[in-house]
Structure formats: structure tokens, C-alpha cells
């Protein structure tokens, strides 16, 4: 993980985060977000009423996992400044999900060192779940 803005180069890859969400994790995420939507915990409702193959991984959980991949990479000196995601596909428990990205740019803005990232969540078959972008601020070397 980079300690300083100067440690990052365009093209650097975020270490991918691999997660296989379970129905238990989905339930805990519903509880932690006070979310009663049955498509996330009631399989009978999700399958028989709404026509999904199983309960659904929450979009905000996918986003949180993608942000986790970013902040794991940027480390404790990094600060998430901006985060943009789009929901493109549904994910289901038991599927292997991958969250990663790469550095697209590095710029100084008003004295701050900002890293522009392109990020994505996907299934192991390559299905795009969540494209996005992130901006992370890192301290500049010697600027303390």
C-alpha cells in the first residue's frame, strides 16, 4: 500500500478482493442497514414472487466491498474523497465476486495529491456487476 502520493503510478493495479457472499452475510448486512427488503433474506419471496434465482446481494454491499478493495489498497494514510458506482447486474450467494481496479491518473489539486481510480466489481465468469470510479487523497512526500 502506498504511503505517499508519489508512491503511485498510472497503471498500478489494486489488489483484487475476492468474496463469496453467504446468506448469513446478507442477513447481517440487512440488519446493519435496517433494510427489511425481502429479496435479500426471504428466498421464497425472491424466487416465487419476484422471479430471481435466489436472494440478492444488496447493491450497497457490492459498493461497500468495492470501496473496501480501494481503502485496503490505499492504506491508512489514504482518504476516500469521491466514490461513484453503478448497479449493472444482480449477484447471488455462493457466487465468487471480484472487486478491483487500477490507477488512471494522479494529479495535484489545490495542493492535495489525488489519485483517480477506475474500479469494478464482477463475477468470476466476467459478468460486470458494478463499474465505478474513485478518487483517493494521499499525503505528498515531505508535505507534512
Amino acid at each position, binding site marked *: 500500500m502506498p504511503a505517499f502520493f508519489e508512491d503511485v503510478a498510472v497503471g498500478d493495479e489494486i489488489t483484487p478482493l475476492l468474496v463469496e457472499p453467504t446468506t448469513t452475510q446478507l442477513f447481517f448486512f440487512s440488519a446493519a442497514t435496517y433494510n427489511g427488503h425481502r429479496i435479500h433474506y426471504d428466498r421464497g419471496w425472491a424466487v416465487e414472487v419476484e422471479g430471481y434465482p435466489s436472494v440478492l446481494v444488496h447493491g450497497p454491499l457490492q459498493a*461497500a466491498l468495492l470501496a473496501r478493495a480501494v481503502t485496503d489498497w490505499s492504506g491508512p494514510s489514504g482518504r476516500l474523497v469521491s*466514490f461513484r458506482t453503478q448497479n449493472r447486474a444482480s449477484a447471488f450467494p455462493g457466487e465468487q465476486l471480484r472487486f478491483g481496479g487500477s490507477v488512471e491518473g494522479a494529479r495535484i489539486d489545490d495542493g492535495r495529491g489525488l489519485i483517480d481510480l477506475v474500479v469494478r466489481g464482477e463475477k468470476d465468469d466476467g459478468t460486470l456487476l458494478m463499474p465505478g470510479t474513485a478518487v483517493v487523497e494521499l499525503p505528498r512526500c515531505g508535505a507534512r
Partner: protein
Amino acid sequence: MTDDSLIDERATAAIGTVIAQSSGTVVKKEFQRWAAAVGDRNPLYFDDEFARANGYREAVMPPLYLPHVTLGVVDLDTLRPDGIPGESGTSALIPLPKCPRWMAGGDETMFFEPVYDGDPITASRTLDSVEQKHGRSGAFVLITSTTRYLRRDTVVAQSVVTTIARP
């Protein structure tokens, strides 16, 4: 507006107005439960000393937890059959009776300030647009709103959220 419009005129009338305001107080254990549910044991969220060594006042709230700080209290007998709040939730703020199925579309949030345990947060949500679209699986309605999160007079974050409603 044609007969096959999915958009209720009450939803159109709400464009440009503040459709919701809510407030809440950040609780460390609640954001830590959220982080643990994500599997994110980042010490910045759990360890005061570690956070202080990295320039924070104490253990900091995970930025993506912010929308959950101001959630209200839901009465079970007001829920829709699918478990979504019927009276106080988003689906009631933007009346689209022809489109009962709601899904998150996308989200762009700018974070301006770290947020900590005990911070009072007010969220103020403005409806930007309600548009009917056509996708691979038929017609849907795209709803865009902007939420500003304030700690007293300081804007700590601003979020543009799109939601998809389907018949």
C-alpha cells in the same frame, strides 16, 4: 404525458423540491457492525489509537456507512408486502404507483470531512429528475436525487443517487 406513462404527476410536481429530511447521531458500534458485515476490519474504524496515529480524532466512521446514520424507525404494519417501508420510505416520497419494484441504480458521493461517533448528521434530499426510459427488459423510471449530509453547519458529504422503478 401519454396514457402509457409510468410517471405519476405527483412525482413530476415534486421535482426540484426537498422530498425528505432526516437526522440521526453516529453510533460507533453501529458503524462497526456495518463494517464487520462487509468483512472490513479496517483498524481506522475500530482502533482509536491507530486512527489517531493516522491523523483522525479517533476511530472514524466508514464513509459508505453515512446514508444509514439518518434512517428512521419503521412500523411493521406499514411495510409493503416486499418488506419495503410503505409510508416513510423512498417509494412513498416519490409516488409511482405503477412501478412497485425499486432497485438501486447508481451513486456518486463526495466526502468532505471525516465523521465520528456522536456526530449529529442531518440529511436533506432534493428530487432532481424523474424520467421514463426503455431498457432490455422494458420500460422503467429513472429517479435522480441529491442528498446533502450536514454536521451542524458543515456539509460533510454530498451524494447523487439514481434509483430504478419498474412496473
